[in-house]
């Protein structure tokens, strides 16, 4: 799946079973991220599909 990271502006290609797994692989604490698929929020325990495009919104403020 394609994963777009708001904080760094980067895009990565990954395999993950669910949101929690994805965040773990990216080493992003759950408290710092919101997952979005097709403009809808995905909770960490929701299953992800290989064909998904996921946006990770950054929760931390900029300063």
């Amino acid at each position, binding site marked *: 799946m394609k994963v777009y990271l708001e904080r760094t502006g980067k895009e990565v290609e990954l395999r993950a079973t669910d949101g929690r797994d994805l965040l773990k692989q990216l080493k992003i*604490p*759950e*408290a710092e991220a*919101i997952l979005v698929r097709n403009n809808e*929020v995905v*909770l960490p325990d929701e299953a992800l599909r290989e064909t998904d495009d996921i946006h990770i919104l950054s929760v*931390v*403020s*900029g*300063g």
Partner: protein
Amino acid sequence: MECACGKKAVYKGQGGALCQTHFLDSVEKKVERTIHEYGLIKKGDTVCVAASGGKDSLVVLFLVNNYCSSHDIPLFALAVDEGIEGYREHTLTDLKTFCEKGKIALHVVSFKESYGKTLDEIHEKALKQFNKKPCTVCGVFRRTSLNRKAKELGATKLITGHNLDDESQSFLMNVLLGNMSHNASLGPVTGLSDNESFVPRVKPLYFVTEKETRLYCFLKGFKIDFAECPNVHLSFRSRVRDWLNQMESEFPGVKNSVVNAFLSILPDLKSKYKGKKEFKTCERCGDPCSGDVCNACKLEEQLS
């Protein structure tokens, strides 16, 4: 995962899973409760919202503007332009658009105007000659600029977008750095309420987490251009923040516990440290301060 109403959840917090409608509702209720419980805004106030265009400031501006409109309380927004290239201009553009849409009066005060230099211009000298991190200078100048301008524009309350994350960080930072007395001036209402030179600062997002404000913006379709200040990594705060977020992810609720622990000792902190400090008036600008010259004026002189 589903909300109690049966719809798909967009958020899972300590109170359980919530759908979009019930999540938005929960944030709005929490803010309204905080305003009432701590008497943050009252009839007769003129409200100034300190806004940067970042997510917290848009949420607080939106909710407080709704509150003030329905209670017939005058409000305006005030932004500080520190002069940080590649960062502030983005958030200020978002803020201007937001205020135009919501028909909110917006004032901007810049470091350049007030101190003759942008933060970018001060930054190097401050670090090299005085070992002062940009955030230290930025914080002192921002606080002073906001207070002076808000007062000049007739505000009786200064609303800030400080959230639960900010507060838990500040408390822990003061503990870790051995500045326990500084904690006496945290809380939902700050500023020296008995000193009329300071406009009292209040925090309606006190019990709202950063994650909640980000989600609120997303669900409401508020446009925020994610931008990070280039100096943020130099701050002690960012270290504490990262650590707290790691902990929160493993042990949900720790940030809340930190703030509740703080609130439970706040009255004691206040009685212990209040009155210890005697306030004089700054020789240069007339603001209250503990010495002869206030921090902002001292910094201004060093960096000029």
